[in-house]
């Protein structure tokens, strides 16, 4: 069995502006959860965005709490929306 899984991370608005990219792949240990992705991304973001609330969607569905990820999942980091 592979030791890691690879997920696609999608970023939008303030998150993609801060990272300078809107999508990238991330290798994670088996059993990793969506919240781990958010923690890893926050480490790369400037400190002034520490308090920014970011929701997580896995495979285009918002998750409640946390979720264990599978290989090739798409994890979207969704800062406050402002449509309309």
């Amino acid at each position, binding site marked *: 069995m592979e030791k890691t899984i690879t997920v696609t991370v999608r970023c939008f608005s303030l998150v993609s502006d801060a990272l300078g990219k809107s999508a990238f792949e991330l290798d994670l240990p088996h059993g990793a959860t969506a919240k781990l992705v958010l923690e890893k991304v926050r480490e790369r973001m400037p400190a002034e965005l520490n308090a920014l609330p970011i929701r997580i969607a896995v495979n285009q569905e918002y998750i409640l709490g946390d979720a264990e990820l599978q290989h090739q999942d798409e994890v979207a980091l969704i800062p406050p929306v402002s*449509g*309309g």
Partner: protein
Amino acid sequence: MIEIQVTTEKIPPLQNDDSHTADGAELIFHGRVREEEDGKKLSGIFYEHYEEMAENELQKLAEKTVQKFPISGLSCVHRVGFVQNGEASLRVVIWSKHRAESLEAMAWFISELKTHVPIWKKAVLMRD
């Protein structure tokens, strides 16, 4: 009846529709881009969206709205990409037997849209 669309195209004028014979209320809301925001002149707003999710979230929200309120139909078109000031970025139409339920459902739908649907505004300033 639910109709949802996310589009980069300009929202076309609404055609008159006399087929809703059971409904006494047809409530139409247009959200338009203002020319000024926080004292700055805007040429428009760029709407970024999560393409694979935005339309599905709008559809789910419309279904919830139809379940929550006694309305007979909801149509929603949301524009994405650049929208020039004065133009509509959002159109919602709700039909119901009486006006009160349409008004209430409209306020709830738009408020929820601004909380859940993955679409983001970015102001584009006017060049002098």
